[in-house]
């Protein structure tokens, strides 16, 4: 069928769905977020079967399919293993651009932590050491962004 859109106005119906969500963090994830909020510490956990140290911690090892019980405190420092600098503005961004999204391999962890870097972007490259900058205790709510950002050392 050929439609000449200069001569007809196709009817549409506008709609949106707005579904509110409340996701339970769960006991294991809560340990991580509460340690951020109350102690400014980063907690991971280690699968004793394959010796992988995960961060954030998780209830079970996906590969071994066994429960994980051993929690470990990780350092607040690590190295950037991948990054991208964001220069455009978009409402869903966690902070004003410019900033960088980065995968950070914390000391003692075997997996990356996804976070942001806000300053010294001209010095940012893979392999640089970074340190977690926590928000003030009064501003921390038990959220991954209780770590305000990572800062290049």
């Amino acid at each position: 069928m050929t439609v000449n859109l200069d001569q007809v106005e196709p009817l549409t119906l506008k709609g949106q769905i707005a579904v509110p969500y409340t996701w339970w963090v769960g006991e294991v994830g809560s340990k991580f977020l509460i340690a951020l909020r109350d102690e400014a510490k980063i907690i991971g956990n280690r699968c004793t079967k394959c010796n992988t140290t995960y961060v954030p911690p998780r209830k079970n090892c996906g590969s071994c399919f066994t429960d994980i019980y051993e929690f470990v405190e990780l350092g607040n420092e690590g190295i950037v293993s991948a990054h991208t600098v964001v220069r455009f503005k978009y409402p869903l961004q966690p902070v004003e651009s410019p900033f960088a999204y980065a995968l950070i391999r914390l000391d003692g962890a075997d997996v990356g932590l996804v976070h942001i870097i806000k300053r010294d972007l001209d010095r940012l490259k893979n392999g640089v050491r970074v340190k977690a900058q926590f928000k003030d205790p009064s501003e921390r709510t038990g959220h991954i962004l209780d770590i305000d950002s990572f800062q290049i050392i």
Partner: protein
Amino acid sequence: MARRVAIVGTGQTDHRSHRPDVNGREMIYEAVKRALDDCELSIHDIDAVVIGNMDHFESINYVDTWSVEGSGAVMKPIMKVTTGGTTGTSVAIAAYYHVASGLFDRVLAIGWEKNSESDTTAAIITCSDPIWDRFSYSGAIPSLATEASAYMKQYGATQEDAARVAVRDRTHALNNPHAHLRRPITVEDVMASPMLAYPIKLLDVCPRTDGAAAVVFAADGVAQKIAPKPAWIRACAVRHTYTWFGDVDYNAGLVSLQGASREAYQQAGIRNPAEDIDVAELYLPYSYAGLKWIEELGFCGPGEGPGFIQDGHTDMGGKIPVNPSGGVISTNCIGATALLRVAEAAGQVMGKASQRQVPDVEVALATGFGGCFWSDMVILGTVRP
């Protein structure tokens, strides 16, 4: 030619209104571990996974990929199957297809829901047509209220008749340690509960539940080595009728269930359902379905549902016990709800239903139901087909 397939293991969480202690993926892990423990398999024995939940319920719309840590599907074939209320029977039937095809020997079916994480109605209305039906008639209650009213008018059934169905299911739930609502109720309690939409009252309908279920399917030759008494798939059927709510003929009954049951009975060689089937786990989301839909299933004649219930034929010890688990009115983690019907029916066939076991089950029936009047059927049996 399809291979013969049997269920060899089942697992489910202890269902609650809220599970703040775990996120969805961790809850899935609980059910999968229990299913694997039930049949003494390890996750490494599983060849493929089929998983489902309700679209929009947790905003987890790529559950196949998101779940792998909990479902055990790391580096395995996994596929999401999401069909609304029937998601649980769909994942079961899809797992059956996987094994029957000859491509996989041991397949895990998973259904789950975290109803506590969202607004159920805001999500569920997306089942119906956005231009024509969604503004007025969607969600769980309206079409069911219409169906119930039509049934009452047609056959003179009463609200008390329906209340007896809710009382039966809630009474049966007392035998099920996994059930969500485990407090006995009376017909008077149902009648006194708040009216939602005439004639449906609060205690006539299912709750919202957090929970997960997992079922292991295995091929002929493999199944017998895993389970001493596997639950063989005797028949599966799926039927849909919905495009326009206005087209539904409420006096004609639940046509999709009539069609699905006819097909499944033919496959399984069932001529007299109430005699040939030993136990039924039916997806009854509200009490009136327990009157009307047993007529569609041929347990009794049209209009005979209320008498059949009142005479106790569907109670434990009756002619055809319905919902020994307590059914959907006692537990409703929606993406898992229909899989729980299959898991419970399998447990009955395998003789592993503990306090809720019906004696000497040879044939068990499980159904699934979706909000715009579609139906699934699964028939399980002790005899290899």
